[in-house]
């Protein structure tokens, strides 16, 4: 549960998806959970280069995250460290994105891990998910 994995099948070739993920123009068009604007997008897409993105949500709140590119293999794979600006979550985490060419275009596998710390990531691998899912059902009954 302290890592999050999402998969999307996208009707676009991997190079187009990769550029959408890494160019400021691309990022400005999708980054953020609602239709609020991206206020700033900077990327230096090479190993050791940094990114910084700031966006405003429709409720007026502004959020900024930044990090370092750890792996850059266009158009297949991107890994970067991740940290929210401010006190929202002071921990550094890891974002990994894999793009696989498919008949319809691209299968994108997104993972955000180390969301709390190394220990909790390990326990995730041990199958923590099941136990927490049960607890979650319990909680939603209350």
């Amino acid at each position, binding site marked *: 549960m302290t890592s999050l994995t999402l998969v999307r099948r996208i009707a676009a070739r991997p190079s187009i998806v990769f550029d959408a993920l890494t160019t400021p123009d691309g990022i400005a068009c999708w*980054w953020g959970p609602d239709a609020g604007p991206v206020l700033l997008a900077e990327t230096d897409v090479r190993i050791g280069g940094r990114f910084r993105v700031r966006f405003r949500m429709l409720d007026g709140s502004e959020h900024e995250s930044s990090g370092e590119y750890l792996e850059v293999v266009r158009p297949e794979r991107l890994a970067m460290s991740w940290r929210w600006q401010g006190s929202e979550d002071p921990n550094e985490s890891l974002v990994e994105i894999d793009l696989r060419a498919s008949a319809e275009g691209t299968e994108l596998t997104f993972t955000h891990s180390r969301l709390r710390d190394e220990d909790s990531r390990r326990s995730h691998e041990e199958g923590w998910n099941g136990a927490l899912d049960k*607890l979650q059902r319990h909680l939603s009954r209350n």
Partner: protein
Amino acid sequence: MVNYNAQLDRTFAALVDPTRRAILARLEREDGASVSELAKPFAIKLPAVMKHLDVLDDAGLITRSKVGRTVTVRLSPEPMRAAMEWLRRYERFWSRSLDRLAAYAERKEAEARKSGR
């Protein structure tokens, strides 16, 4: 916010251990159990179980109440709820962002095809 993060750290740290997760899972099924009932399925001694219960108690994940000589342990859902809400915020952020990324990339693909690339 500092307290909020300290509480989350305590919650996640408490959840790292498989014995403690098993105890919580059991308390999720049964609404309250005695310490000796909780200790039974584990190949560890009672003092070790007590230590795990101390960690869970410190994290606010359980409550203990004593009636006569029996200590009853119950699940205390609030810290778990907070931890899940914290994780759900990440899920919402990425799930919606990736939907928008997909829509954007598909528009770019359509444009590229129209211009014959």
